[in-house]
């Protein structure tokens, strides 16, 4: 290519490197392979270093009896795994996960409800969308502290109930062992509903609007539109949310740990694992517990994929 300017002529020859340093292949095909690789190097490196490497280490630790820092580590084979399955109190904490699991159904129902309503023309749609999603963006620790004040005796919830005239029904929301898990599951639902809501909203909005118009012409009501148009189209997202809900319920940690440290019957399996590692210096046993949890979640996910495959939607 020649560029004629004020008497200067620059000739660029693509086959010679003249004063220009060229990295890598020059053909577009080569670049099409190289550029994705270059982009992937960073996330893959992070994944390797911060996820896979620690998991491999952890599996290794699960065969040891070790306190986390001492120079001698004792190899004990499968003794940790045997201990997990012979000590009932280590598995009993899964009972607490049931509260969160049920909570996640409530969460999905609410998210679905809001997503459906806010698909159609409503006044202040964007404001509601923003408000519903906002809790998910707040840091988990901040949420924990906010709700500690919320659930305190004479705290925000009690004040609200008094103002509305329900004063005599106030409880020790975190002090009463029977309802502490309900309170904590409520916080979890409050926090994560926004995410489900946004996922469902995206899925629902991908349904072309002609279908709605057609169904309106056929005289379908809102409920019928929901049941026959929306629901079938978002079944894959529902399936995914369900899998995430189970995984979330099994490995719930942040909310109860911040708010109660797992005390008063609110301990979950992961909290127990963390305590085992850091309070009782049993890193080997804790690693084995983590591996057991991983296997349980993998099994659950695999079972669900089988079920959903049968329905031909995943």
């Amino acid at each position, binding site marked *: 290519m020649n560029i004629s300017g004020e008497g200067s002529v620059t000739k660029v020859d693509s086959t010679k490197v003249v004063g220009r340093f060229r990295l890598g292949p020059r053909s577009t095909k080569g670049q099409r392979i190289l550029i994705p690789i270059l982009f992937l190097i960073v996330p893959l490196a992070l994944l390797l270093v911060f996820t896979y490497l620690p998991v491999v280490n952890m599996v290794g630790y699960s065969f040891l009896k070790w*306190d*986390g*820092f*001492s*120079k001698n580590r004792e190899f004990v084979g499968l003794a940790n795994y045997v201990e997990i399955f012979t000590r009932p109190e280590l598995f009993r904490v899964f009972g607490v996960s049931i509260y969160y699991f049920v909570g996640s159904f409530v969460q999905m129902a609410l998210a679905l409800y809001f997503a459906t309503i806010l698909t159609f023309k409503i006044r202040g749609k964007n404001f509601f969308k923003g408000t519903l999603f906002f809790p998910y963006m707040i840091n988990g620790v901040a949420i924990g502290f906010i709700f*500690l004040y919320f*659930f*305190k*005796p004479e*705290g925000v919830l009690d004040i609200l109930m008094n103002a509305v005239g329900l004063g005599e029904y106030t409880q*020790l929301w*975190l*002090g*009463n*062992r029977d309802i*502490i898990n309900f309170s904590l599951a409520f916080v979890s639902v409050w926090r994560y509903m926004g995410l489900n809501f946004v996922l469902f909203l995206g899925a629902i909005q991908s349904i072309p609007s002609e279908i709605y118009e057609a169904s309106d012409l056929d005289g379908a009501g809102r409920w019928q539109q929901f049941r026959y148009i929306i629901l079938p189209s978002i079944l894959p997202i529902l399936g995914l949310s369900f899998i995430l809900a189970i995984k979330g319920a099994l490995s719930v940690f942040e909310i109860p740990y911040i708010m*109660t*440290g797992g*005390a*008063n*019957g609110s301990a979950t399996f992961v909290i127990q694992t963390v*305590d085992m590692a*850091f*309070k*009782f*210096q*049993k890193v080997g046993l804790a690693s084995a517990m983590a591996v057991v949890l991983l296997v349980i979640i993998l099994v659950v996910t695999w079972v669900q994929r089988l079920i959903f495959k049968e329905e031909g939607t995943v």
Partner: protein
Amino acid sequence: MKSLKFLVVLMIVAMLAVACGGAAEPAAAPVAPAPAATEVPAAVAPAAEAPAGSDISGEITVLTNRTDLVDTTFVEYAKKFNEKYPNVKVNFEAMTDYTGEVKIRMNTEDYGDVLLIPDEVNITQLPDFFAPLGTVDELGQKYNFVTEKALQGQVYGLPVTGNANGVLYNKAVFEAAGITELPNTPEAFLAALQLVKDKTDAIPYYTNYAAGWPLQWQSYLGSVSCDPDASNKMVQMDAPFAPGTPNYIIYKLMYDMVAQGLNETDPSTTDWESSKQMFADGEIATLPLGSWAIVQMEEKAADPSVVGYMPFPSNVDGKVCATAGGDYKIAINKNTESPEAARAWLDWFLDESNFAYDQGGIPPLKDGEYPPQLASFAELGVELVSANPAPAGEEGWFNQIDTEAEIGLNTPNLGQRIIDAARGNTDETFDDIMNDLNAKWTEARAGVVNQ
């Protein structure tokens, strides 16, 4: 193309923001990992006297848990230190979760030059991580509590300050409740708290259940038993929690206070930081904490004289005791590159900084000055009991049995379990818990003693 440019600019701005934010953290001297030499370094000799102060040079990193003091008081200390040792540069690294972070760093060689020994390090592991500072005989003449982090005659850590274990009480509240004499039995203490509940609006006993660590009462063992060998005896017993034992008395008081409703409405929502202000303002009557807390309460009180400190309400034939022990112990990283500089700082901090006095604690020096906060103990004729080290061959057994049995004498778990039972959230009775502890202790003990 325009949106791509915008995106790139946004990313650059974001990265700059992160980079600048990172610079605000306290700069730590990059301590290069020590060369892979495997010999144990010789004991780090104490620094020579003042005239040779400028001979010692180097750069050291001091790890501390005092995030509240690191930018203020510690900087002052560094300045004074540099007057004596001008060629030593001192950098501080403060961590909120001190033991958690340091424990993990101890897997490498990079855990500062001078640091505080985390409690979880078992005594037998001390030589693996810390440089020996001198013999027990030699240092024992100059310092208090040298045996707490000593193994086979060598001392690995010296206490930065000492604590007496007792109970904080608000003098104004006690007066308003009509308590004239400080109780010295658990029953008298319960009666006094009942008076507080009946006659004042204050919470008689604030559990701080949510924070958890204020429920770690095992350190009252010396106070109740008046026996410096109490912990060592526990290692020899199969049922150290049986009725009549000091442990039984200690935890029974916690149980009874909550069972009789002498605590706050909902232990699950307590807050440590606000409890300090509540105590200072007279909304809480008693807080069982170590003497290190006295200074913190006085700072919050409009009238500091209202903060009182009494020994644990228990006596042995009329003799009232209080456990005295070292707080955190300061030690030198075995892998440090500047052993003389590190030793200079350690010696200066213990001997000349007055840290212990300012914190209202027992001085590390045997001839050090006791702060006014502990004067009340002297007046009451309280005998300070400091625990004897374990006999040779049994070092670290107590902690081993405790963690093996998962009792958690140094964790909040036991206290929380007792309070849950006391407030009726579980079906256990106090004796159920004690029997369970005895059973677990017996089993774990068999494993540790016969190893």
